[in-house]
């Protein structure tokens, strides 16, 4: 059988890679994708815990289901805002959306 540590490690790596994407990308949409990666890491955690450690109540599965739903909603919401930004400034580059600073 596969040890649970495998899944946890994979989850951590996915979370980290997602964070890396957020830090290094400049396109708003790519940042959104990176956030999705982070959330995928989280879902793996939840489901691994539910299947391995909480087999009676499996709350983690339900949690993961909601995480997926919320993530999808977030993408829709954020895309709307990105589109608006694009219409206003002809760019989806977050570095150029920095009128407000210090």
């Amino acid at each position, binding site marked *: 059988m596969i040890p649970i540590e495998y899944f946890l490690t994979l989850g*951590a790596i996915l979370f980290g890679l997602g964070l890396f994407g957020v830090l290094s990308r400049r396109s708003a949409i790519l940042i959104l994708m990176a956030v999705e990666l982070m959330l995928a890491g989280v879902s793996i955690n939840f489901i691994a815990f539910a299947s391995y450690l909480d087999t009676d109540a499996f709350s983690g*599965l339900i949690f993961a289901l909601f995480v997926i*739903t919320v993530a999808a909603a977030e993408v829709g919401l954020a895309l709307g805002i990105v589109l608006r930004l694009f219409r206003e400034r002809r760019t989806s580059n977050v570095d150029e959306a920095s009128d407000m600073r210090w």
Partner: protein
Amino acid sequence: MLKRIPLPAQFDRIIIGGGITVGAIGVPLGIVLVTLVAFGVISAPEMVFFVAAIIVILGALGCVLLPNIVHAALSLTATLIGVAALYLLLMSEFLALVQVLVYGGGVVLLLLFGLMMTNAQDDPVVTDGSQKPFAFLLVSLLIGTFITLLLSGDWGNPTAHVVPFELFGERLFREFALPIIIVAVLLDVAITGALVNVHTASNDLPEESE
């Protein structure tokens, strides 16, 4: 007939290039893994896990590193499908299904549309922020710390169990009725948000700069 579908011309390149990449990396890895299984070093489920994990990690790397946005988005699809495979390994067919439907079918498509609408060039190459090297260093440390912290715990030796489908549904809709309502409202908010922002852009603004 294919030419009538308004797909960017790069799609064929993606399919060919992606195929070659997968073939070049996947076949040797597959051979190694099958050999390991054959000699009993790892079990068959572990082999499946490793295949899926490699797809997931490669896809994630592609998603955060590839300079072409469309490639990155498709790479994300690979990751998400790999994650769905992991869910199957975790005995959760339902969530695997949801993952493929919502992500593979919905979210990625949405993201692709977003890409098309905001950056409608044929070859949308992006440059990354200059804090990339710094971020790389930071995130490597971060992943290292996370894994150390996770593996220092004594997780015991648990095994995965299947959750019966109807039990799942029953628990979801009985005990978690309220979260479902909240999520419904949440989706409603998200749609409202998307609508008002797109609407603002087309109506409320003065003329565009160009």
